[in-house]
């Protein structure tokens, strides 16, 4: 496997060291270059173009007409925008928090030595691989207000059946269930990968100190995978802000408008409705930019909090 003969170093020390220094300096840039090249080629233009669109009144295929910031002020004045923003926030909270906690627990369990572990690990990823068509029909059946399994169970427990589609909170909870179902296994696998890198001796030391399994999980596992937890929080926050597929799938033909009273219309759905259904591309672009700025400010706050709480922590 050795590519360099041992004596090369002594023959050309100066050339080697210059090459070495150049390598140390340039390698990081070379390593991050593919991402930025790809982004420059396919990501930058959409970003700028969307910004330009957001300042115009324009329909797909039509002429653009300058509006300045009027698309943004129109959003500020629109009840539907604030409604979608609120829905995005509430659905985001009730789907992301349980999802990440469940994933953490699931990853912990999957990390045990056991028979059939491989099968179980793959099984929890199944929701992520399930087709939208199958998932739609399954959940439409489960949440059917007349004869769905969930209302049947609620009936056994002695409660009134719930109208999962037209009532605001039940609909948002149902969507959060779908989100949680779809993404828990995904996050669990990400946690699991991180847990596998936790050094064994930390556990051994903790065990010697008499820490229980639960104690080890809290004081060894969690701190050791903190960067990965931060990763999932960031990604889920972004995912929740851009939530699109699940409410669309849950609402079926009413999906884009988020139910008859817009009770589960998220920002992405509103954007899609504006851009594709009613042809207001400029307003849709303005929503995209608002989402972007919103996320960036959330990110800035998050980063600030991390810096305040761990002033020395870098790397």
């Amino acid at each position: 496997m050795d590519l360099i003969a041992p004596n090369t170093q002594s023959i050309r020390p100066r050339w080697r060291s210059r090459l070495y220094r150049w390598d140390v300096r340039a390698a990081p840039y070379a390593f991050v270059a593919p991402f930025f090249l790809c982004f420059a080629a396919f990501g930058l233009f959409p970003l700028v173009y969307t910004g330009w669109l957001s300042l115009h009144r324009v329909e797909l295929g039509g002429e653009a007409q300058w509006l300045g910031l009027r698309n943004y002020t129109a959003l500020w004045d629109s009840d539907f925008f604030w409604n979608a923003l609120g829905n995005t926030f509430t659905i985001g909270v009730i789907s992301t928090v349980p999802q990440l906690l469940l994933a953490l627990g699931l990853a912990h369990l999957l990390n045990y030595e056991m028979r059939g572990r491989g099968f179980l690990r793959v099984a929890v990823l199944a929701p992520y691989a399930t087709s939208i068509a199958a998932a739609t029909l399954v959940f439409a059946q489960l949440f059917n207000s007349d004869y769905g399994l969930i209302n049947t169970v609620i009936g056994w427990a002695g409660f009134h059946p719930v109208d999962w589609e037209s009532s605001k909170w039940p609909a948002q909870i149902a969507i959060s269930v779908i989100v949680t179902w779809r993404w828990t296994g995904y996050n669990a696998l990400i946690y699991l990968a991180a847990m596998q890198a936790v050094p064994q001796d930390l556990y051994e030391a903790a065990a010697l100190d008499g820490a229980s399994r639960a104690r080890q999980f809290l004081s060894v596992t969690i701190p050791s995978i903190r960067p990965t937890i931060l990763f999932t929080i960031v990604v889920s926050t972004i995912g929740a802000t851009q939530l699109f597929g699940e409410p669309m799938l849950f609402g079926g033909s009413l999906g884009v408008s988020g139910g008859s009273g817009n009770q589960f219309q998220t920002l992405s759905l509103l954007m899609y409705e504006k851009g594709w259904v009613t042809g207001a591309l400029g307003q849709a672009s303005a929503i995209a930019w608002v989402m972007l700025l919103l996320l960036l400010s959330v990110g800035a706050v998050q980063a600030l909090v991390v810096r305040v709480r761990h002033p020395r922590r870098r790397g």
Partner: protein
Amino acid sequence: MSTASTTRTRWRPSAGRQQHAGPLTYALLVLAALVSLFPLYWNLVAASHSGERVVEAPAPLLPGRHLFDNLAFAWNQVDMGRALVNTTVVAGLVALSTVMFSTLAGFAFAKLPFRGRNVLLALVVATMTIPPQLSVIPLYEIITDLGWVDQLQSVVLPSLVAAFGVFFMRQYLVEALPVELVEAARVDGAHSLRIVWHVVFPVARPAMAVLGMLVFVQAWNDFFWPFIALTPEGNPTLQVALAGLGSGNHSVDQAIVLTGALISTVPLLLVFALLGKHIVGGITAGAVKN
């Protein structure tokens, strides 16, 4: 599992604790697996009934007798061979390059000091916030200008690297890869690519396998963009080719739609079976001697 020196153990990736699962753990995991797998099972059930039965209440829970009729019908309507090859190419290339490039970039962001590192990392994360439902319009302008409509590169090239992957590998390596290891290799005179190959990859393997799997599935099932960039009868991926299945006069035959979904999920399950092993086993032995 006996090790000679403690320093070696400290940074060796291990398959976690060698503790055995109790019955409660088993019960919980089996429950989770059942909840996760049920829609897949139901997909099979639905694909084995007639279109009217599938949408009838209450929904069928046991397989019916129409599976082979439905399979034959779907198979005849769509050029599955070509679609399967295309999808494998797309998902394979996207997964492979995302894993490679993300690991390289993630390593640089996690362990290599360079000017502008924090700013660039923040930029990577910021790019994730661009909503995809709208960027397809400008993206389509790009690929029409390049003449790539209905060509596979239109779906492969924009996804060669993902910010998500870069950030993921960075967060993983920041904790999993001890910086002493990289420095030791440097002292030995190893150049950067050698370090990547001999130090980073062995440590990153569990994360690379997980990332590869997630990205592969994502690319395999992607519909929104491929449906715009490719055409069902030209050069489609599976999801695009299946878009015409179940067409009827003002109604859709859900049994046929779900038969198509089943056909597209089965290869994915095979990949799981294959790749799943790499996530699970083997990693315990991932020791690197210095």
